[in-house]
């Protein structure tokens, strides 16, 4: 408990805007936890306590309107230390780069578009970040995705294990939405996501969950 209080105390002394950016929720915000987390950087998620022991004091900064009974986490300051590269992920990125970046246009004989280097870079960065978040933030295993091309020049990042799947499609234009879809048993998740790190925590949590 004191550890987390210390975190908040330190944050209040630091640059509030850069450390706790986005923490102020709309007054009428009653979104469930999973939606709330989407607005923050994944490493801003700090395990605080069980659902039976919500730490109300720390949540007052976020919003008085969030139902604390549903929360097992609290948003806290993040470390700016970059993730360490995971060799398994780097190997897949190298394999995919050798395959995708040399395709050329019409690589399928049906007019397929060559994915751009920028699109591939965004896909690779996502694979790196998400895999590292699973390990670092959620204490999960190294889950290696496959990175593959699409006819329209977009790139897929695809996790497929016996218990969970997640497909994230990186469009060939950064102006188009990045979409995702996943399944774990009868549970499904799908939608659009902005490709900045702070919005990927819920996807890392989805992959990391082993229940």
């Amino acid at each position, binding site marked *: 408990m004191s550890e987390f209080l210390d975190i908040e105390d330190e944050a209040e002394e630091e640059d509030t805007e850069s450390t706790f950016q986005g923490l102020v929720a709309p007054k009428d915000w009653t979104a469930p936890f999973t939606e709330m987390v989407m607005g923050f950087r994944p490493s801003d998620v700090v395990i605080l306590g069980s659902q039976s022991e919500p730490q109300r004091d720390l949540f007052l900064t976020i919003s008085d309107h969030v139902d604390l009974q549903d929360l097992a986490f609290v948003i806290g300051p993040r470390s700016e230390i970059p993730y360490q590269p995971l060799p398994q992920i780097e190997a897949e990125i190298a394999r995919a780069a050798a395959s995708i970046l040399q395709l050329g246009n019409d690589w*399928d004989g049906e007019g397929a578009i060559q994915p751009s280097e920028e699109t591939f870079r965004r896909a690779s960065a996502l694979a790196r970040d998400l895999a590292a978040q699973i390990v670092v933030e959620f204490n999960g295993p190294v889950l290696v995705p*496959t990175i593959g091309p699409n006819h329209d020049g977009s790139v897929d990042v695809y996790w*497929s294990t016996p218990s969970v799947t997640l*497909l994230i499609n990186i469009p060939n234009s950064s102006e188009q939405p990045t979409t995702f879809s996943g399944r774990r048993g009868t549970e499904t998740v799908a939608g659009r996501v902005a490709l900045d790190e702070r919005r990927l925590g819920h996807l890392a949590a989805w992959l990391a969950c082993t229940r």
Partner: protein
Amino acid sequence: MSSWPIEPIPDPDRLFLRVLAQYVVASKVQPGAFRAHVTGTSTEWEKYATPRETRSRAQSKPPSHYGVCFVIAGRVRTIPGLTVEHTPTERNRAHATIFGTLPAPDVDLTTVREVLAAAAPLLIHPNEPVR
């Protein structure tokens, strides 16, 4: 139109699809193998085709560039918006089409591709020689 009668495809039956080598990684079919097709996704019904025959009928690239996977007709039909129809052509009685993969605002193509990829085991690896 073809002279072959259009038949109902039972839910348990398999539909064979050619899969370009770029869409196979570690013997797994990747979601990229499934994409938006204005005319639907062409497959071949196992009642009138074998996986080898499906591979041999490749047109855009030589058959050696493709593997073959299958999907179960009934599984495809459980995906919202998708239907399976027997669409024989004069030269290919086995031809069947998965409709519903149109690029449309109400179709979540990422979900469709993810579900289909997970339900499409590989039967012939692209590395296998063509016989």
